[in-house]
């Protein structure tokens, strides 16, 4: 270690500003010295290198997580279970049930016997949808009198229920159109049509939408956790005394420590981006340098957040906990991964607008899927540009040069 504890071991108050001319070769303490910062960079890199398990976990872990989240988190709702309570048992009612079973979204379960059966099977979660056809359905329909089909959707998971509702309505409409063709010999004529164009992701597949969004998630969670212990660990194990009693300033100490993690995170970013393009086949439509620049700003933020957690806590467990709270929930729910930030409400909306992950997510999707240039992404670059020095500055301000 290049810095030893002897030189600045002065009586209290601590030597935040040792006398001038103390070290002729080095710049005056108090002013930023690249040399001293670099020595902490070397120290921290050594620590990373001597604990290969941690760096491997970080790199390999993000790759594994990208696979499981990329493939696992799917917004296409399929394979929904349903069953029919057919109390009519006429040709027409069976025709209606048949219409559903032909859909690729639904899987038919054995018919429902009665209301008690319907209730029990919906409560257990076995059925996402139950259809009830009342007695006399076919007869009334033949006569032309209005009839009703009842459908119950399991609302326990609102997003899934919403999708089920959409599917059922669409299938009901198509059945009506079919009936009209069969019975009246003509298709019902709509007064107008609506052409829907799904832009940026024309097949509306989950993967191209998810992968560019998973990169910001992982580049927040893992780098912040890597730096989260870097300061507090020294506090807990006692080596923080090197900061207290040597001329190194707080900013040299922190920036020096941060640099190797920024480098590791950038390497991680290139790895993930390369995987996205090659293995996942998500085309990078925009400019790679733009994305890399944004990633650099972003990993400064995420490693900085870890440092903030590390400077104001006193125990490693506390720092772990704070980092988890400060990254997991905001990243997964408040930064637009699933729901756009503009639709969020309350505290979540406030956090989401400020949180760096939201802005990097917009840039990542913009560059990957929309081929946007840096000028059209300005609105997301400025917040990142402001957040990076702000977060690192906060960490420096929170770090004490001497334990109170």
């Amino acid at each position, binding site marked *: 270690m290049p810095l030893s504890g002897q030189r600045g071991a002065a009586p209290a108050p601590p030597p935040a500003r040792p006398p001038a001319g103390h070290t002729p070769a080095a710049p005056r303490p108090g002013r930023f010295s690249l040399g001293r910062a670099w020595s902490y960079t070397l120290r921290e890199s050594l620590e990373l290198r001597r604990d290969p398990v941690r760096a491997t976990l970080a790199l390999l872990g993000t790759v594994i997580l990208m696979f499981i989240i990329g493939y*696992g988190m799917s917004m296409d709702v399929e394979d929904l279970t349903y069953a029919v309570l057919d109390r009519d048992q006429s040709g027409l009612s069976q025709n209606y049930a048949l219409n559903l079973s032909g859909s690729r979204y639904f899987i038919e379960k054995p018919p429902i016997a009665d209301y008690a059966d319907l209730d029990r099977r919906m409560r257990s979660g076995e059925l996402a949808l139950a259809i009830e056809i009342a007695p006399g359905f076919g007869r009334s329909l033949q006569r032309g009198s209005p009839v009703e089909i009842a459908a119950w959707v399991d609302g326990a998971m609102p997003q899934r229920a919403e999708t089920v509702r959409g599917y059922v309505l669409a299938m009901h409409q198509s059945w009506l159109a079919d009936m009209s063709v069969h019975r009246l010999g003509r298709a019902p004529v709509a007064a107008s049509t609506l052409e829907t164009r799904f832009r940026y992701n024309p097949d509306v597949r989950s993967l191209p939408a998810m992968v560019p969004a998973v990169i910001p998630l992982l580049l927040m969670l893992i780098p912040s956790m890597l730096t989260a212990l870097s300061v507090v660990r020294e506090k807990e194990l006692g080596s923080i005394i090197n900061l207290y009693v040597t001329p190194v300033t707080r900013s040299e100490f922190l920036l020096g420590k941060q640099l190797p993690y920024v480098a590791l995170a950038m390497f991680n970013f290139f790895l993930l981006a390369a995987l996205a393009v090659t293995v996942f086949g998500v085309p990078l439509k925009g400019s790679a340098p733009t994305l890399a620049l944004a990633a650099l700003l972003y990993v400064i933020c995420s490693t900085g957040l870890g440092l903030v957690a590390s400077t104001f806590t006193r125990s490693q467990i506390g720092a772990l906990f704070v980092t988890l709270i400060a990254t997991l929930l905001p990243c997964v729910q408040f930064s637009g991964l699933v729901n756009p930030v503009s639709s969020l409400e309350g505290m979540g909306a406030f956090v989401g607008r400020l949180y760096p992950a939201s802005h990097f997510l917009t840039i990542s999707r913009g560059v990957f899927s929309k081929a946007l240039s840096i000028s059209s992404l300005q609105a997301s670059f400025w917040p990142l540009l402001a957040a990076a020095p702000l977060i690192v500055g906060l960490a420096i301000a929170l770090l004490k040069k001497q334990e109170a």
Partner: protein
Amino acid sequence: MPAPFKLPSPAHIYRLGVKELWSLVRDPVMLVLIVYTFTLGIYAAATAMPDSLHNAAIAIVDEDASPLSARIVGSFYPPNFKTPEMISLAQADAGMDNGDYTFVLDIPPGFQRDVLAGRVPAAQLNVDATRMSQAFTGSGYIQQMVASEVSEFVQRTRSQAPAPVDLALRMRFNPNLEQAWFGSLMEIINNVTMLSIILTGAALIREREHGTIEHLLVMPVTPAEIMLAKVWAMGLVVLLAALVALLGVVRGALQVPIQGSVALFMGVAAVHLFATTSMGIFMATLARSMPQFGMLMMLVLVPLQMLSGGSTPRESMPHFVQNVMLAAPNTHFVMAAQAILYRGAGIDVVWPQLVAIAAIGALLFAASLARFRRTISQMD
């Protein structure tokens, strides 16, 4: 240190557990963080999640400027949609590129005239399909809304036969599909898992790094007793926190009606805590230091949260992922919790999940017991 096998002594387990509780009480930062996660943290997560289609950003290019197009514009309003922004065709692309609008509806010139003349004109809807959650449901909604506005408008001019078969769709267990009902409960489950792993696993690593675990290992207590003490003490803390969150935040502040038995839910949560605290100890036997443990925890918590069925439906995941996730206690806990709290299911319905969680817990406990003395007593 070869210890002869003996049954764990309840007195030892009790006293060691009380020791764990004291060390937690003496750590005010942890207490504050625990209170935060189970109150404000859950409240924030539950209230942030928009209902499926909430405040969707829409812009309309009205090239027709007719009474019919005005009707269509007027049909979009909060809370499902934001008040539509009226833009020109030229602004549409930039607005979508920036992500200002998720939907842009273009009503072409002569739309009303063509509708009335029976020429079936086409309006155009542009959807930002990178926002998957809104793209699907939103475009379906808009399709219906435009169609019904147009058909109402037409019906005033010429009569049309009503649809012969009506579909009565009802949402069970959550009639208005309020996302807070779902979000708050899932957040409790996430926090229960996170906290129990921190409290047991990280605490064990700390004892190891400080060398205090050595004191325990030379005392006449067995690893099984040390582990069981941690399981009951930390499990109890998290269980109490979860109960406060369920009654105080979810039922109290968020006004979520709880259908089923809270006691049954607590019972399942207790079994789940046995599994997750054992998981925390197991992870502590794998990691050599706190930084490694931190990494390991991230890598375990993220899939547990995102793939257990608490964020996206299990059905839509690939079968491989579905099967792998059956090995995680969270998956079963999420299923059981949804059944109990929303659908009012009883033990007769959720017992398979209960058995699964208990089996996973026993397995994790046995695995950590096997590794405990070998790995804990040697520091790196």
